[in-house]
């Protein structure tokens, strides 16, 4: 089993004729994903690796003859918000936003609309998600043969703010024989569609997932949110965390200041060290090395 995706999941690629999109379309098809259409305004009638291209999402849905489950969006930042709105308003419920450098306000608007329509956004600034051996949605893991090397089906759910580290961690879990149930590159921006805490209920429901590994960085308060979620739900799903960027705590490294008004809105901005303490206090072990993850997960599984 898995979260968010299954072998029957269908999706489209918005911006399919772009260079990166052409690559990820090839990779996903090779991996077994069902891409039922692509959208690039003005390019209707073309094909990308055999996938028909349309001008609008509406045309893609009509051509498919029924609801489409998902969309991978990889269009320039200035057009991304509209593309997300277009997907949502055409009944698409899972939207992976690959595009980087989208202003926060655009993301916040899209996330609010998604909430109203019952859709879910992953990203932006992410590589998507993968259910090993079944399908992948986005560039995660790279070409099918590379993805196969790093991702074996298994029982660990992975969530990571870094796309590349999603694969590094999953590869470690694969090498240790644990494998991965679903890995989600959640994106590195200040506001993202789905945080750790927002994806946890799904992992919790998934009978296949026995433990979670998260990769995190300085900035934001997503770990605090995760700890709160765990406390509120009394979830027993074990979590192991890795925190990168500890060097940024050093005084001489600090190019940016935290605190003040932001602090009173969201609570104190955690440094890396504070985040580690917060997670550990909640019973979430934080490993110092990626290569310690499998062992620590096994300990948690008992």
């Amino acid at each position, binding site marked *: 089993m898995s979260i968010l995706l299954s072998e029957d999941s269908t999706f489209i690629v918005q911006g399919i004729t772009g260079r990166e999109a052409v690559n990820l379309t090839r990779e996903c098809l090779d991996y077994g994903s069902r891409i039922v259409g692509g959208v690039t305004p003005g390019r209707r009638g073309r094909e990308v690796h055999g996938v028909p291209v349309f001008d609008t999402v509406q045309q893609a849905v009509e051509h498919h003859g029924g609801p489409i489950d998902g969309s991978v969006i990889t269009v320039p930042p200035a057009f991304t918000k509209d593309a997300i709105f277009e997907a949502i308003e055409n009944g698409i419920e899972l939207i992976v936003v690959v595009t980087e450098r989208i202003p926060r306000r655009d993301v916040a608007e899209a996330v609010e609309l998604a909430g109203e329509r019952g859709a879910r956004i992953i990203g932006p600034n992410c590589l998507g998600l993968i259910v090993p051996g079944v399908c992948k949605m986005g560039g995660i893991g790279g070409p099918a043969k590379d993805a196969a090397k790093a991702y074996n089906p298994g029982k660990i759910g992975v969530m990571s703010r870094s796309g590349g580290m999603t694969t590094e961690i999953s590869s470690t879990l694969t*090498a240790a024989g644990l494998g991965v149930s679903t890995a989600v590159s959640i994106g590195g921006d200040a*506001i993202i569609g789905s945080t750790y805490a927002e994806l946890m209920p799904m992992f919790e429901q998934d009978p296949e997932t026995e433990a979670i590994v998260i990769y995190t960085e300085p*900035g934001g308060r997503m770990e605090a949110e995760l700890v709160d979620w765990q406390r509120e739900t009394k979830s027993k799903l074990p979590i192991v965390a890795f925190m990168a960027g500890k060097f940024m705590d050093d005084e001489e490294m600090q190019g940016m200041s935290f605190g003040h008004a932001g602090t009173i809105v969201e609570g104190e901005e955690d440094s890396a060290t504070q985040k580690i303490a917060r997670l550990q206090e909640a019973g979430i072990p934080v490993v110092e090395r990626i290569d310690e993850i499998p062992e620590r997960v096994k300990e948690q599984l008992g």
Partner: protein
Amino acid sequence: MPCDLAPASLPPPMRFYEYESRRIVERAGIPVTDYGFAETADEARAAAGRIGGPTVIKSQVLTGGRMKAGGVKFADTPDEAAQHAEEILKLEIGGHMPAGVLVDPKAEVEQEYYAAVLWDGRAKRPMMLFSDMGGIDIEEVAEQHPDHVGRGHLSNLQPIPDFRAKEVVAAAGGLTGRELTRATPILARLAQLQRDYDMTLAEINPVARLADGSFVALDAHMEMEDEAVGRHKNMLSEIGVELEEPRETYEPSEFERNVKAIDEADHRGVIQGKDHGFDGDLGLVIGAGGGSLTLTDAIRSQGGRPANYAEIGGNPSVAKSKGLAMEVLKKDGVEKIAVMMSIVSNTRVDIVARGVIAACLELGKDPAETIAVFRIPGAWEEEGAKILGKYGIEFRDRGTSMWEAAGEAVEKVQGGG
């Protein structure tokens, strides 16, 4: 200085001088004093003359602590204003020369308030803040007098309603009467401004009630999200902001400038290099975002001293990888570089291998001696291994963990071997 809550690896927001922030709030329909901006002593004299009465002359620098540094002075006459301006314009504060001085009437303030609108990342919505205890550190007020801070979220999709601003003002110590009715539109307009111009922070501290009962924004602080600067060019040029002029928190080093130039000259892939705060002997050619953070920690935790920080991503060209490696190798005290990444799926191992070897050769260095470790598993790794083999460099694939690779690099630099 307030805050940006963005993750560490994202660019900081664009900062504004006080006089620019003043212009931004003025444009948004928020009342301000009859201020003037001056770049010379004569201009300051003229501004003070126009204002009439006592004035305050404030240095315009993108850093805090100007009061302590002598960057704020009071004047009773236009001549005195000119004299202060002359001194302040020459005064360096925290390594920054002022862009000019703000000449403000010395206001008869009866009461100070605090108003701000900023992102609540957890709620994914903007939040309005208002307090009747302005002019001081809002964090302190929130801690010691929580009932004097009103707050309220805004929808991202709905128009900004005045009543929401009113609710926030009313919640700040129970404000009512003229205070409530005057402050409400200021907060509502501030919220509109925050939305319209993608401000990560829109703050007025203080909003002041003057002796004549009028309300003005006395000191405004704005920060615009870097990603959004491009879509506000018109507004920025209207308030006189030069987009080319750098607004870094510190002066970029030669290394940082050179790496930036190499990155901008070639659209294939992205390289970033920083050495602010780094002064070690181990050069880093590392990627991508998360991999760079992880590897830098792994080096330092094992006693290594990085000479720089770097991020490589998006499959850069050979020339670009070479350019970064050369800049790292040209740094004082750097004899060896560690070339390491988390598993790559887009950036190609063979292309990076060519780039770093070419850098060594061009600088007349033996690649096998200079490259302390090469650990990049992933796309085109077989081809990469062949290239490295030819130059006597051992290729480390995913069988060597990031921690182990970092440790090996540290050992090679410190062992001198």
